[in-house]
């Protein structure tokens, strides 16, 4: 039987065998890169809101405490979104006629809440509790970033399980004194390794990495 392939085809065969290995690795890398990209996780992408509410002004320049609006953050799993009444505490007098705030006034008059766009949308099969994280010394900005520098809100982290586990495995890298959880700096101090270990000890922080801790 005559040869089907000419000897000159040998390099092609060798190349394609090696190439397949590289292709497989490349495909794996590409999948990883895509799932970690902002396009997929939607992190670092500012979300549009019905009213362009700015944390940069309210939290940053005015210095309002997180809890002025997110009142239930210390007592419940849900941080709480302020009712329109909280907006109107000030905006009956300040920027009272601004066209930008028309949806707020409308909500105030009709009693229908403003339909904000959720920025940190955790999957329904994950249980998360704000209050316990604050009590154990995890600050707002560890997960939410420096919101005092965000005109519109965006997600600063991937919200992947590996991201949760990063901290549950090594809480000493992120923990801070309870008095400082509402502070807005998101960079840990230089002596974090020492402080971290101390605080983990003092607050009895033993985060579980069991599946049922979050998936229940």
């Amino acid at each position: 039987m005559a040869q089907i392939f000419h000897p000159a085809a040998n390099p092609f065969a060798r190349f394609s065998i090696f190439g397949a290995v590289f292709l497989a690795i490349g495909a794996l890398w590409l999948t990883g890169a895509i799932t970690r990209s902002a396009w997929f996780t939607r992190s670092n992408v500012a979300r549009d809101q019905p009213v362009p509410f700015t944390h940069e002004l309210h939290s940053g320049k005015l210095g309002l405490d997180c809890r002025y609006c997110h009142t239930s953050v210390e007592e419940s799993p849900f941080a709480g979104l302020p009712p329109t009444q909280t907006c109107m505490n000030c905006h009956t007098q300040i920027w009272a006629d601004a066209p930008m705030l028309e949806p707020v006034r409308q909500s105030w008059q009709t009693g229908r809440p403003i339909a904000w766009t959720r920025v940190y949308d955790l999957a329904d099969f994950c249980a998360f509790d704000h209050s316990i994280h604050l009590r154990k010394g995890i600050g707002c900005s560890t997960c939410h970033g420096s919101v005092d520098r965000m005109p519109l809100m965006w997600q600063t982290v991937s919200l992947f399980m590996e991201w949760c586990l990063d901290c549950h495995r090594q809480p000493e890298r992120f923990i801070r004194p309870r008095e400082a959880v509402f502070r807005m700096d998101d960079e840990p101090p230089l002596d974090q390794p020492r402080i971290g270990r101390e605080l983990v000890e003092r607050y009895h922080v033993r985060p579980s990495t069991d599946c049922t801790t979050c998936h229940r």
Partner: protein
Amino acid sequence: MKYSKCLISLLFSLVGCHQRDMEDQPRADPLEASAFFEDGQAARPLVEGTVARGHLRVDEHLFRGRVNGAPAGTFPFQITRADLERGRERYAVFCAPCHDLVGAGQGMVVRRGYQPPPSFHIDRLRQAPIGHFFQVMTEGLGAMPSYAHQVPPHDRWRIAAYVRALQLSQHALLDDVPPQEREKLRWKP
């Protein structure tokens, strides 16, 4: 036969890839929108004329700051140092934006154009019964809105206690300070 088994398991694995359904389960999360109820909210208001268990508020003193219809002159519970600390923290969160940290009424929101509140250190407010402050926080007064939806009643009393402490602090004399603490106040170059 072998191939069809493979194919079937492959199909099942594809059907199993409905992560979206598990991400958005058919349940109402806090403050979620709802297409079911007329007002578009999943969170339901209380049925009219009902009181949730443990939420009956008949104690005039504790919940309205009144005794026999007049502003109460006393606290409804013993104020401890911890209560004062809590009051200070809550004051900084909810009151300082307008009243500022010493209570002079020059907070950031006032500097941005909100009608200024009176200073806590004027005679009228220094003489006012403690229930007055609780009442104003609860019901609002003049330009000030009610803070009942943001601050629970016990915390409102603690804030009132801290406002009293602020008033004392602005009219204190060196003789009011315990002798062992006086040294700390001395100016050190």
